[in-house]
């Protein structure tokens, strides 16, 4: 007869076995991170942007400052007029120059002007392989129209992709794609350096203030209060004015200001963590302040540190773009997303793509980092695993 209440047979060693396979902390974090589609998408976007920013410029045939004034202001996609000559198209630029385009969308040349017939409100341009033909640009109506040699309008049009400059050219005829890659490079560099510097300064400062407490904490946090009461933008601008222009100035300015938020977050975390029993246990064991701070407090505060840092990256990127936009950031001709936006405002109505593209990249970078930060926060907390 079977015994319904017989003891389950378990050898001594088996009883204490844990069934799950062991993972290191890093692997665990990665597995949880990869489960989140938004976080993964953010990470892929960040990596792609990084690859574009680092490798892209060396693959591009153009440099960030090479101007081709004759081909300025051509968008990535445009509507061209079919020319009388077969396989040739004419594109009228916003400032009423005529650019000859082949059927693949390659920009060939700007047509040389023959005569300005201002009484008839038209301009004649030479065209054809040996400049033997003529076309007229009629600007009497709101929308300029092309006329052939006999004066009949060239009505047929075709939409073409710009093959010479994939994302078009700006108002000085520089390749926007190349400039975007340089701009992203600067943005990401500013972001990573500023975030790293702020993380180190803020974490140590906040950690020390929180752990030592008392008078040290009071004095250290008053310094933070003073720094944070000065409007951040004003402060960054002042630092920028004092320091030499360029990239280094921006990084120094951002690094010396943004750590205050990090210091506050870390201090708050440390204040609550240091009363936890595991920290008391470390003290009774005899671990020193350094060890307690570095192995107990900061790793446990890492979740909020990373979240704060990834929230800080977009705001640092935005601040760099903003400073470049108002003209105290990256000096021309170097490309930055901010200076590109600024350049584009002049021709906003006729060439909106010049503003849209850098703004899109700024948005992409900020979104990507926000998603990554979100995913990191969730995956760094092992308590959520259950």
């Amino acid at each position, binding site marked *: 007869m079977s015994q319904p209440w017989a003891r389950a047979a378990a050898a001594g*060693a088996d009883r*204490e*076995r*844990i069934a*799950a396979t*062991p993972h*290191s*902390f890093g692997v665990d974090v990665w597995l949880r991170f990869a489960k989140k589609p938004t976080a993964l998408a953010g990470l892929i976007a960040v990596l792609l942007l990084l690859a574009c920013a680092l490798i892209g410029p060396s693959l591009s045939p153009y440099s960030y400052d090479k101007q081709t004034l004759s081909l300025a202001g051509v968008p990535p996609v445009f509507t061209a007029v079919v020319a009388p000559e077969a396989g040739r198209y004419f594109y009228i630029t916003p400032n009423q120059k005529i650019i000859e385009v082949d059927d693949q969308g390659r920009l060939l040349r700007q047509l040389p002007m023959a005569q300005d017939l201002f009484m008839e409100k038209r301009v004649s341009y030479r065209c054809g392989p040996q400049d033997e033909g003529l076309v007229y640009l009629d600007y009497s109506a709101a929308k300029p129209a092309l006329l052939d040699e006999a004066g009949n309008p060239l009505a047929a049009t075709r939409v073409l992709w710009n093959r010479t400059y994939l994302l078009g050219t700006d108002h000085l005829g520089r390749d926007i794609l190349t400039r975007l890659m340089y701009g992203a490079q600067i943005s990401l560099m500013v972001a990573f350096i500023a975030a790293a510097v702020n993380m180190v300064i803020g974490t140590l400062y906040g950690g020390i203030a929180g752990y030592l407490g008392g008078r040290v904490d009071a004095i250290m946090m008053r310094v933070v209060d003073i720094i944070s009461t000065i409007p951040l933008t004003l402060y960054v601008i002042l630092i920028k004015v004092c320091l030499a222009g360029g990239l280094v100035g921006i990084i120094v300015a951002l690094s010396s200001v943004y750590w205050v938020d990090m210091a506050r977050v870390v201090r708050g975390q440390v204040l609550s963590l240091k009363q*936890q*029993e*595991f920290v*008391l*246990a*470390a*003290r*009774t*064991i*005899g*671990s*020193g302040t350094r*060890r307690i701070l570095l*192995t*107990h407090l900061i*790793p*446990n505060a*890492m979740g909020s540190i990373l979240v704060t840092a990834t929230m800080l990256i977009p705001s640092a990127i935005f601040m760099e773009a903003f400073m470049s936009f108002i003209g105290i950031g990256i000096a021309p001709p170097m490309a930055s997303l901010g200076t590109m936006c600024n350049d584009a405002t002049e021709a906003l109505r006729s060439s909106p793509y010049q503003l849209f593209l850098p703004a899109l990249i700024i948005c992409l970078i900020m979104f990507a980092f926000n998603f990554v930060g979100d995913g990191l926060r969730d995956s760094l907390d*092992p*308590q959520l*695993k*259950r």
Partner: protein
Amino acid sequence: MSETPLLQIENLTQHFPVRGRGHKVVHAVDGVSFAIGRGRTLGLVGESGCGKSTCARSIIRIYEPTSGHVRLDGQDITRLSQKQLLPLRRKMQMIFQDPYASLNGRMTVRALIGEPLRAHGAAESRRDEEDRILRMLEKVGLTREHAGRYPHEFSGGQRQRVGIARALILRPELVICDEPISALDVSIQAQIVNMLRDFQQELGLSYLFIAHDLSMVRYISDEVGVMYMGQLVEHSPAEDIYAHPLHPYTQGLLASIPVPDPSLARLQDEEGLSGDLPSPIDPPPGCRFHTRCPHATGCCREEAPALRNVGGGHAVACHLV
């Protein structure tokens, strides 16, 4: 006892200032004295908030005692700086109440148990460290494969074993157990207490064993101290306190132990404890227990009773005994 006791506490007092209330203080521990001999166990009991844990934390210098002396092995450690204290910490370790909160969730069991070795530079080499960690793990009833695990993968009892391994790896002489079993379920409590007893026999440890429950203390302790509102109200050899509890508070505590068989309820006719603890900021004058004592007299309200010996190592602080 002719030799110096391992741990001797004299008039230990721990007050905490109260913020925003002028110069008022919380009287967490008020003039507690006791001694623990080598290889012996003192059980310290009392209800929540009576100052047992604070007492333990003042001894091991998590808190800076307001006044009084703590002597470890005859050496006064009360006013040593943390740096001077460091070598002495090897002799004195602590097991914490909450096995969930007392282990850092970001460290593996190997790192947790190895921390004391690293803090004191006790291991001769990496291999020696690893060896000692693994041996300790097996001693507390875990296996080698647990070394790479994180605390959240363990049950409460297993975590407490990790806590014990961490406290014992430096081979201390005194282990302060701050309610090591109250967070565990009953079936595990006995395992842990038995393990602590085995270690005591094997290593000659002394324990300061804190609990809020007299029944488990009885099993492990040589002597028992009862605390009420920061003061020691009764202190005697373990069996004596169960057979002849003298202080009305001790009697109340004993009466509150549930009895498995109601027909054997020997103390149920005695009164249990009623009423709440008075505020430790303004402790009642006289005997601190008089607000809840069924036998209180006028004398109890005015004069604080001293702890006095009534024979056989049994001391009690009550006017009526």
